[in-house]
């Protein structure tokens, strides 16, 4: 570099180098477009960023919890075996639950599958009032006031919804509010799979 002032002026670039550079740019561009097209195609895949739940395909955890409406009665996971069921985790403290509630109610009214509520970390009075106000679509509501059993289920908030088959195996899970598209494209197909498998 030190004697650079004696260097001849830089020569004009060759045609070959230019063509090469253009081909590289072109290939890069095509690759980028392909990648973005792939990205667009998968962008509506629901839960594409959710980590797959380790519980899918595993037996549902053992629990023994009281019913919300009759605290004297207790329900265990063995009681629920035999038929598939959908379990919806909710709480009166959860605003998102109100959003999904009418949609879930509509689904529950089809009587396609047993629909069970899982009342998480709630005051009993608040929970009952909430059901009175927004309607109770649940066949039964299990109350988990302390949220101990919820840890075994891998529940980290409400709303969450599980689909469990007749053998007590968790087949599908959704975190967050459910909308009609999720019911139509995920929950019902998963249910049909269970029904067909039998």
């Amino acid at each position, binding site marked *: 570099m030190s004697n650079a*002032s004696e260097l001849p002026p830089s020569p004009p670039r060759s045609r070959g180098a230019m063509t090469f550079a253009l081909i590289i740019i072109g290939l890069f561009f095509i690759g980028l477009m392909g990648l973005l097209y792939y990205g667009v195609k998968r962008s509506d895949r629901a839960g594409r*960023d959710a980590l797959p739940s380790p519980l899918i395909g595993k037996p549902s955890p053992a629990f023994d919890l009281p019913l919300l409406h009759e605290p004297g009665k207790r329900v265990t996971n063995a009681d629920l075996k035999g038929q598939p069921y959908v379990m919806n985790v909710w709480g009166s403290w959860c605003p998102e639950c109100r959003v999904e509630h009418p949609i879930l109610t509509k689904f529950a009214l089809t009587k396609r599958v047993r629909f069970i509520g899982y009342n998480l970390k709630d005051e009993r009075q608040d929970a009952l009032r909430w059901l009175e106000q927004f309607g109770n679509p649940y066949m039964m509501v299990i109350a988990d006031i302390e949220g101990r059993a919820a840890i075994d289920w891998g529940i980290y908030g409400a709303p969450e919804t599980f689909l469990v088959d007749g053998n007590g195996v968790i087949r599908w899970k959704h975190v967050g509010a459910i909308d009609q598209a999720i019911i139509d494209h995920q929950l019902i197909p998963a249910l049909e799979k269970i029904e067909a498998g039998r």
Partner: protein
Amino acid sequence: MLPELGQIALILALLVAMLQAVLPLAGAQRGKASWMEVARPAAYAQLWLVMLAFIALTVAFVQQDFSVKYVAGNSNSLLPMVYRYTAVWGSHEGSLLLWALVLAIWTGAVALFSRGLPDVVMARVLGVMGVVAIGFLAFLIFTSNPFIRLLPSPGEGRDLNPLLQDPGMIIHPPLLYVGYVGFVVPFAFAIAALLDGHVDARWLRWTRPWTNVAWGFLTLGIALGSWWAYYELGWGGWWFWDPVENASFMPWLVGAALIHSQAVTEKRGAFRGWTLLLAIAAFSLSLLGTFLVRSGVLTSVHAFAADPTRGLFVLIFLGVVIGSSLLLYAWRAPQLSEGESEKSYFAANSRETLLLANNLLLAAACAMVLLGTLYPLIADALELGKISVGPPYFSLLFIVLMAPLVALVPFGPITKWQRENLRKPLAMLLPWAGLAIALAVIAWFVAPQGKLKAAAGILGAAWVGLGTLRFVWSRLRANGRFTPEMLGMTLAHTGIAVFLVGALLVEALNVQRELAVKPGQTVEVGRWGFHFQGVDETQGPNYLSDRGHVQVLRDGKPVTLLHPEKRAYASGGQVMTEAGIRPGVLGDVYVAIGEPLGDGAWALRVHIKPFVRWIWLGAALMALGGFVTAADRRFRNHRKPEANPA
């Protein structure tokens, strides 16, 4: 009624954009003056029509017309008046409308301020901008119509995303868009030049001020976004390498390269092909950024809804615009360099070489950011699992690429064009380098922590700052002629120095504590004390807030009272933090409130952030540099050729 008017205005704007694109471009190819003359009136008409649509939507927001679906989705009767205006661009449809409006404003500005341009150039430039407008207006009308009615009308709207209910959000998106979209002007000029088949100094004198202004606005927009994230997100950070941030940062990097390469091409005639390619790249990256943000292909804190139809539309548009530009470039660019004269050759030791290095480093940094941003997508496509690279990757590579750039900055202005004796600039800067090293050594010993980063920050900042000062001094001593162009460059380079102080010192000296405090308790952090007086509930216009009272003490003496807040917004139950900040030139004290811990105790997050404000001050100086440069009178002297007096 008014929303329908807006709708009609948008459709008319699309038709006008078609006219503006087709007739002038065809006229310029065939030499038909009457066709070319359509360009300017069409540009104005488009501006008025898009503005009308924008006003219609704004009125719908101000009057709380919840029968408009977009208004119902992004507003609420409790929403304060200011945010009814900003809610217009609070979500997808409206922000695209803002995009279209900004494009129309740039188009109108080019039509207005470039009267001296030859008709053919003017027709082509406005024609290319018309093509871009077609794409965006069609996108608006066919996939993202903000004027769709919701009947029967709901009585109440959902709310504007609480994150956006903030003064910073009033001007951040418009500034960012003005910058982002502004790169359409150098792009249009580049395409016009490629269609025309030659590039000369005159062409660059027309383009340079536009590029500088757009880049300046982009700088301001990014800085404002960073500032907003700093005080609104409650994490105390100012840059997160989030996909949406990167989407605006990539055109910024290439824009910075473009500004420099345009200067070389204008003054020396060198780098012609490269300058054109950068102009295409800068706008392509703006489009890519729009795509990344609007398609939901990547997930980010900005969490926009994913809609494959929209994504596909922008992707096709992106492909057509960038693909055809590159094809045109491949076809025409080889001929452009044939016109390079003796003047454009340069030796290895010259300002041209330095600016080439600047360009390569900035372009490499942009490629690095692009790779990191798309990495989760690449990993997913290759089934490597769900991976994203995150700040460690970005920070490391960015520092590796920017350190040489910082080292070279002071050499640029004092090195001669074409050929320079290496000893001269070295001799000029050697004492200043010594001084910068001395300051860095002092910083090493003074800094209580993060010694290496503090020393590096001072070294870089002092080197760039002093080196820039050296340039100013030699100019003033030589003949005192100091053009706005030089002043702009000086300001922008000083901005780099100021930014380096902020970015690296805050990194080195930042103190962060997670505290659990009970009312009446005082906690000491270094020389600062925090006396927690308690939390009470206050009612805002559309939220309920836990408002903390924290007295800040310095060396035991009370300095100020801070009120960090946690707001629960009525409409969606979302909780937002509002940090309490005591700003200062030498550093901020930053308090954010966390969860109640029982027994009246609360979690408090306390940051001491030395020099953090210098980050945004530096960015503001860079932007100012861009504006001042653009104001150079040299750029405004574009008279028409003598044969065709104005």
